[in-house]
């Protein structure tokens, strides 16, 4: 029994780490712009496909695949900000960018459907078949890789936000865009930077998720829906809260699969979300923002 709990704990942390990567992108964008990017899901999917094709074409070099996925994500983020969010910023609407990115998402999903077809791809990396045993626990090398890469990325991002000038500028913009602009920080270029970082993260998490998920053009949707829940549970725009919430959701997912039924995952996650919103709408770690609650 303990083995099962520990084993599912490992699986939960693996998935949770990936969800954190996706959710961090959403939360960073929300932090600086107070907008939701629905096409984030499709950046994840495109990242997974990019990694898949690079890994297949270049005889299984998975790391090059991850690098290309990061690049693809960053470029898409740049495009989406330049084409959608920047022109719509003057409208000051919460809804219009959301709808516009839903349109982008429909476009990207169907473009992928046209290019890659609806049949799920089997994305096997050289690491997904190697199993490491520790006592009665086991995990694949791919899982280890996911944990290492996501931990390293989260740590790097955290350090970037806390200690570098750009990170500080970014936090300044998310606290108060106008005052930050008065201090000589160009909010536009920082918003662009945020989009590129967030989308590169999404591309990377796609490359890491690809071997774990059922890889179809719609794979990102199930991930993004959970990422939204994580972002809210953790508190929109809050990095620490997002990390904790991501791990909680990952664990809920693995324990629900083990003890109830995989069909109950989303119900459990969103029930937690709704309870959270009813009890503590500011999220696990309250951010000093008044506009939403």
């Amino acid at each position, binding site marked *: 029994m303990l083995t099962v709990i520990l084993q599912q704990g490992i699986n939960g942390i693996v998935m949770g780490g990936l969800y954190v990567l996706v959710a961090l992108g959403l939360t960073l964008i929300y932090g600086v712009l107070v907008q*939701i990017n629905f096409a984030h899901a499709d950046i994840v999917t495109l990242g997974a496909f990019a990694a898949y094709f690079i890994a297949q074409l270049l005889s299984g070099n998975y790391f090059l695949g991850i690098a290309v996925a990061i690049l693809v994500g960053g470029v898409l983020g740049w495009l989406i900000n330049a084409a959608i969010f920047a022109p719509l910023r003057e409208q000051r609407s919460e809804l219009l960018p959301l709808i516009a990115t839903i349109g982008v998402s429909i476009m990207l999903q169907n473009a992928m459907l046209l290019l890659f077809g609806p049949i799920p791809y089997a994305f096997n990396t050289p690491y997904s078949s190697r199993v490491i045993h520790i006592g009665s626990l086991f995990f694949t090398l791919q899982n280890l890789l996911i944990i290492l890469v996501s931990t390293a990325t989260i740590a790097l991002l955290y350090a970037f936000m806390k200690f570098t000038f750009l990170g500080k500028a970014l936090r300044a913009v998310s606290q108060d865009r106008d005052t930050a602009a008065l201090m000589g920080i160009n909010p536009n270029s920082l918003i662009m930077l945020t989009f590129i970082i967030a989308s590169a993260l999404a591309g990377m998490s796609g490359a890491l998720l690809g071997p774990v998920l059922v890889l179809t053009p719609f794979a990102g949707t199930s991930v993004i829906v959970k990422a939204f829940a994580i972002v809210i549970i953790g508190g929109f725009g809050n990095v620490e809260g997002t990390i904790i919430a991501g791990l909680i959701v990952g664990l809920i997912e693995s324990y629900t699969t083990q003890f109830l039924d995989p069909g109950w995952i989303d119900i459990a996650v969103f029930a937690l979300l709704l309870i959270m919103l009813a009890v503590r709408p500011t999220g696990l770690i309250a951010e000093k923002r008044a506009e939403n609650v």
Partner: protein
Amino acid sequence: MSDLARTKQPGPTLNQRFFTLRRFCFLVAAIIIALLPLIFPSSYWRTNLIVCAINVLLAIGLDFVLGYTGQLNIGQSAFYGIGAYASTLLIIKLAVPFWVAFVLGVLISGMGGALLSLFAVRLRGHYLAIASLGFAVITYQILLNWISLTQGPLGIYAIAPAPPIALPWLPRIVFTNLTNLFYLIAGFALLVYFILDQLVRSPIGATLTAIREDDLSAASLGIDAPKWKAFAFAVSSAVAGAAGCFYASFVGTLVPDAFFITESFSMLAMVIVGGMGTLIGPVFGAILLTVLPEVLRGIGDLRLIVYGAAVTLVVLFMPGGLVQGARVIARRALRVTTKFEARP
């Protein structure tokens, strides 16, 4: 004194007031609805007409809570699904007559909306958006996983159409006939439009718009925002529930995938493309976005890409939707004619 005198002037008589421009428009709309099945005789296009009518219902219902009350509800598919499944299950499992099940289905969806409004009381903007999305995800997953009740992904088959109506001195009206079914649903949509139109132009409409513009100021005027939000959510979701009941009896099969969250997104697109915060806009938005993919069938798989691009482009270049576009065109046309008339 003169002001007082003016107010005492007799208003238009009842007879004059009866034939307003607005009522004339409703009459024209009714005539258009009556003529549409005659213009499109093929059963393919008549089926599309029915889908249009259902989508119009969904779009104006959503616009009531989204456009007029300003509540970011992106989970409307939940109420569509609740209405469809509640009425169908009542008919199949409890042998409730169709129209009783219809009313109960509408009521149950309305109560679901009131339940979601409990969150809207405390949450605003994107938080409410994600809460409503969560509500829709949970509803979808329950429909999918409560197999003993909904038969899950297998779906419910062979749902009977609405029972025939036998009016005295008239032939029986059967709803297996596409034309009659279209008249039923479109007539109901027109009725709902009429009621919503009356609502939004009444003091209730002003109350809802006040909540949309500023919660706090509305509260300071003594408006009980939680109560009115619950009202708006209940009305909006009841309309979606009615659309769901019609959908079930029209298609004859129910699978949870018909009420996936993407369905909410296409309703949102209809409202936005048409023009949020007007009632006529979403009607045209719904018709356009229902017909567009059908017209584009010729380009095959590209059609949904074009659909997505159309939604994005409308938001970018015409954020007020078709209504805004029509206004711009009308203003230009008017300017042209006045210029033309000004010339000797």
